[in-house]
């Protein structure tokens, strides 16, 4: 029985690069997936493309591909990535140039386009899922509208001989389902198979999160070698359990516990994990350690995919300004509270609504609020954080100014003030019929 080995070489836009090289070189892989696109990332990429039509793909595209292309070529590994972001066509052109420069002549590159549905959602009658308001009310604040597309165009690209497939907003698990469906001959109504493939993709899509990353807790859940964390490999056949493993000798660990945590990561109803390819059912899954760093995951299935596709809408929503300053020693908490109160008072007097201002004491109550904090003794040091939402960049700058001026106008012994301003790109969603999202696959040869 044919077994496909598929590795996950990146779990987010800023992920480490060398684990992907290790996977491609030593993983005996058929496929290497590089998942680099989050909801905000694609909105920011659309903004980059608006400023320069040749950009809008992942800014680390060239660094990542330069690191993995030659070794993937040498070891016969096909790459699937969503680093096309808001501009798969330009990403493909850039990848072709790079492949030639690296001596990978004849490399077949496919780009998948069609997920950009900005014009469709602005022209049509679609409601924002979170508020019920029409999408068109976002008007010129709307930066991006990208549908989560499924695995079918990836299968088409592979069938056309692509050894590097570059998509935009494909759903994360679909990047894995595509190669699995192509290699194992799954049709797009083979729902239980697509559900299994979706499970493999879900377990792998955050890369190091299933091999010991986002897991280690010294004394309770020890993980060795996080500084050289190995990224995961799934072995998938047409039937039987999915095996999750990693390159022998790499850091981290694949255990039943790491797999169970990732199985439920960002899952709501485990019996209805909705993707463009299937509604997967993970509710009966079993997880069994079969050897060191080898875990068998079985029992996933799926049912018919939804008729609509989710669209991620990115829109401008003002600015957030922030300032921080630290206090130490006996009485630090009292001085920190005084500092926060002074900054808040002055920001409110300047016209910022109280609800748009947040003051935190880092070390005490910044993460979960005062009620959760069980501080038994006063900490040696505490850091005040003041953040506020404002309509303009200029006003956002005032927050940092108010905190910085606490140096000379606030409580005793304030040190280490920092300030920042960022534009808020908020994300909402809507749903549109599949038929409105035709995808195209373009082939280029390096």
């Amino acid at each position, binding site marked *: 029985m044919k077994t496909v080995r598929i590795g996950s070489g990146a779990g987010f836009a800023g992920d480490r690069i060398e684990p992907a090289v290790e996977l491609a070189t030593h993983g005996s892989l058929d496929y290497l997936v590089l998942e680099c696109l989050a909801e*905000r990332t694609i909105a920011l990429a659309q903004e980059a493309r608006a400023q320069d039509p040749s950009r809008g793909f992942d800014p680390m595209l060239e660094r990542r591909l330069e690191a993995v292309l030659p070794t993937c070529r040498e070891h016969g590994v096909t790459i699937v990535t969503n680093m096309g972001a808001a501009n798969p066509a330009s990403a493909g052109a850039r990848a072709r140039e790079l492949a030639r420069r690296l001596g990978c002549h004849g490399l077949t590159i496919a780009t998948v386009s069609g997920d950009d549905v900005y014009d469709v959602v602005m022209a049509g009658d679609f409601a924002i899922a979170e508020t019920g308001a029409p999408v068109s009310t976002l008007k010129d604040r709307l930066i991006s509208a990208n549908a989560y597309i499924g695995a079918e165009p990836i299968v088409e690209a592979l069938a056309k001989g692509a050894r590097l497939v570059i998509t935009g907003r494909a759903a994360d698990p679909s990047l894995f389902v595509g190669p699995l469906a192509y290699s194992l001959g799954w049709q797009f109504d083979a729902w239980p198979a697509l559900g299994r493939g979706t499970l493999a993709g879900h377990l792998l899509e955050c890369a190091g999160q299933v091999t010991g990353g986002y897991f280690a807790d010294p004394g309770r859940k020890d993980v060795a070698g996080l500084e050289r964390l190995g990224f995961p490999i799934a072995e998938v056949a047409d039937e039987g359990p999915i095996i999750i493993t990693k390159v022998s000798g790499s850091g981290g660990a694949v255990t039943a516990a790491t797999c169970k*945590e990732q199985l439920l990561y*960002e*899952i709501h*109803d485990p019996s209805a994990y909705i993707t463009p390819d299937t509604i997967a059912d993970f509710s*009966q899954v079993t997880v069994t350690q079969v050897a060191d760093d080898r875990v068998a995951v079985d*029992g996933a299935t799926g049912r018919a995919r939804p008729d609509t596709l989710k669209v991620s809408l990115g829109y401008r929503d003002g600015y957030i300004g922030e300032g921080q300053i630290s206090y130490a020693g006996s009485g630090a908490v009292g001085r920190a509270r005084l500092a926060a109160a002074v900054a808040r008072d002055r920001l409110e007097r300047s016209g910022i609504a109280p609800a748009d201002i947040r003051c935190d004491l880092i070390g005490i109550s910044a993460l979960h609020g005062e009620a959760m904090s069980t501080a038994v003794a006063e900490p040696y040091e505490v850091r005040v954080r003041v953040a506020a939402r404002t309509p303009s960049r200029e006003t956002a700058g005032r927050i940092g100014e108010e905190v910085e001026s606490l140096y000379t106008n606030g409580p005793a012994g304030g040190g280490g003030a920092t300030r920042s301003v960022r534009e808020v790109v908020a994300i909402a969603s809507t749903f549109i019929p599949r038929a409105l999202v035709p995808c195209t696959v373009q082939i280029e040869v390096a």
Partner: protein
Amino acid sequence: MKLWQIAHSRSGDKGTISNISLIAFRAEDYARLTRHVTAVRVRERFAGLVTGEVRRYELPSIAALNFVLHGMVDGGVTRTLALDTHGKSLSSALLDMEIPDDDD
């Protein structure tokens, strides 16, 4: 006892909805988790942080519960003023929850 003595956890988010898993280290502790860590108790635990419903899903095949917290305060990942915009640290707050240790 604290939950972290018998279980581990991971949190994730989708916009204004967070989920927190709770997984028994030993399968025999799953019943204890289902008995003591109800949706109501989890909602109380996160009273200041959650405005909406808390739903619990049971996964006996992996001795785990999955809590879905609707209406996280402050507007969700992309526009929140909170320091931990993604709620990645919520799992630690759940694991510090106290449950009775005398009912075996």
